[in-house]
């Protein structure tokens, strides 16, 4: 199988340490994580509000994460877009998949999409898979 040039950075071996290397940088979401019900929205929800002290320097949600590393940026993206990434990989196309490829600095996006679709089961191993695991699995699939 043709290999895809995937990660521009070399430190692939340290992937499982992704979270540890970025203290405070959480990848907690799991696949299809449930959102609170309608009532939650009626009462409390998303009043267009923001909480906490936000500065432009620390973009919200990336606190403690070194997003200049492609792999960290990709893991953060997957963390917030798990459903779409899963759907796009299963379909072999889509905006979230394209974005992920761009973040990972993949050049051959079409091959990347085919490879990911063919190995969907290896990437999304269970419904509790985390963003970090998805990135690690994706890397393994691509490295063949």
């Amino acid at each position, binding site marked *: 199988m043709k290999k895809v040039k995937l990660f521009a950075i070399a430190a692939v071996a340290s992937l499982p340490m992704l979270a540890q290397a970025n203290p405070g940088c959480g990848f907690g979401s799991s696949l299809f994580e449930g*959102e609170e019900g309608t009532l939650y929205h009626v*009462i409390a929800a998303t009043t267009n509000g923001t909480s906490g002290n936000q500065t432009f320097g620390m973009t919200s949600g990336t606190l403690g994460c070194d997003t200049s590393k492609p792999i960290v940026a990709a893991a953060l993206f997957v963390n917030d877009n798990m459903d779409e990434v899963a759907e796009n990989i299963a379909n072999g196309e889509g905006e979230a998949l394209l974005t992920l490829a761009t973040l990972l600095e993949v050049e051959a996006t079409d091959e990347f999409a085919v490879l990911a679709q063919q190995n969907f089961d290896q990437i999304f191993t269970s419904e509790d898979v985390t963003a970090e695991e998805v990135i690690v699995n994706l890397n393994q699939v691509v490295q063949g």
Partner: protein
Amino acid sequence: MPVIRLIVVFAIMMIAHYSHAQTNTTTLFSTYPALQELQYHPRWLKLVHYKGTGKQQESLVDDEQFFLAPTGKTSAQDELLATLSFALQQTEQGQRSRCRFPARIKFLEQNLNISLKKSSDVCPEFETWRADNNVDTAWLIFPSAYLNSPSSMFGHTLLRLDKESKSNNRGTALTANAVNYAANVDEQENGFLYAFKGLFGGYLGYFSMMPYYKKVKEYSRIENRDIWEYKLNLNAEEMEWLLLHLWELDQIRFDYYFTTQNCSYQLLALLDVVRPDGNLTNHFELIAIPIDTIRELKQHNWIERAVFRPSKATEFYDSVNALPHEQQDHVASVKSKSIADFITSIDHYDLQTQIDITNASYKLLRLDKGTKKARRKALTLLRYRSRLGKGQTDITLPVGRIKPEDGHEGSRFTVGTIANEETAGALLDYKITYHGLDDPVSGYAEGAHINFLHAQATVFDDTVKLQRFDVLDIRSLAASDQFIDRLAWQVKTGWERKVFNQQEQVLVAQLQAQFGKVYKLGKFNWYALLGGHVEHSDRYTNPYQAGPNVSTGLFHQGNHYVTEVAFKAFYYPDEDSTRQHWYWNNTWSYARNASFGIELNSTNYSDTSNQKNEAYNSLTLKTAFFF
């Protein structure tokens, strides 16, 4: 108390610097003659967010950090002199002001024809931020109305900053930075307190930045709101002004008001800096409805093109509606069937059909998830989907989706003639905003109705009488179908004139709410709702009346014709009486902002104990203008 000492020392330093600056005022004016006029320069006024002139002049910013002169909030001249005076200093403080206010520095440099930046200046925070935001395009983002959240009822607006020259495909839009102005709210705060503080200014507003995908997740996935994205036609110089001024607003506090100085208003104030001769905010001092601000931008040629980003629910309906009926039934069945059974039921179709059915089915499952079992089921379906290959890309998407800004304007004025069994008179009706089921539906969501501040009066024999005044009237009548089960609801509060006997018609304060279901019947929606009401009037034996009510009706919303026939019955246990109301409305729109209508009303009061039974019928011909 070292902290206090530090503050005191700092304050003395500030005062020293400022008095130093003041003694230099005359010098500044003689050195820079152009300075005299600069305090009136439109861009200066926009950069410090001033409103009003002379003694009325005041900046909308409510943060001391934003002003360099102690009187800066109320004086454009003082702030201008202080800014220049600080900017001229070689000191660390001078450098800090140059790093903090890059747009003001650019403004002074341009207009005084001088160079203020020092070669020794280092602004690491700004430089890093500017490098991270090496963008060339700004988009105005409009997540459409969301009835379930008080702050989002009329929609919301934010900005997105793209590096478009890097990529023309949409692979980078999601990771672009979004600029959001919002109230700083404790998520646990309850809705009523929120509404109160939102109206009267109890919240603090800040600009914040985050990856756009976070906002997309919030709007299109969690809240199921369609998003319209409008590309602004800013050139490189204008983009520079936008970014430089945005930096000046980092961590700067405004008082937040959700109908006036809200997200949409403050974004216009930001854009006013970019094209200072435009005065975009001027039309929105009383109320700023997001879609109206988009219309304003469109009218003044800010918008290059629009892109539609469907919500997850819209995506599902687009994909399922492209399928023939019998295949739609397979999609609906995925909710109750096991994935194994589902696959068996569709495996006789050709590959592309299997792909189309599976895609739609997954989108359906995703709308309703959460339990571990549901998540496993969705994953199992995706595994099946991944084995089907890529297939053909595009399903047939609905064409000609009407852009929200092309719908009727928000304010409505109606005149008409009203005839009852004895006499005829005139009808006057006005609402401030937004959209009702009796208005043309183009550009608005089906079954959604939000009217804010709506008054109706009649004139009979030269007597003007206020018939109703609705403060807020919301109806969320989205239909349930074989795919999605929805709760329909409506709530209304205000005053309505009620008949107590022939001579006495009294305005009664009321709050009513109903919940129920809506189903499609061909081109019609049929609804049945059950609820309660509380009324207050001194005319009642017990001034507070509470009771149950029912409501049922049919409505149809076409491109040029909308109609609704409704029946409501209110029961008053205290008085053992009922009020029944029949209503039939027909509205034809003959232009984007004009319509003609015929309305029939019949109200029946019956009182079982006194055998009272009175009916009031009326026919109304009316014409409405939106503006």
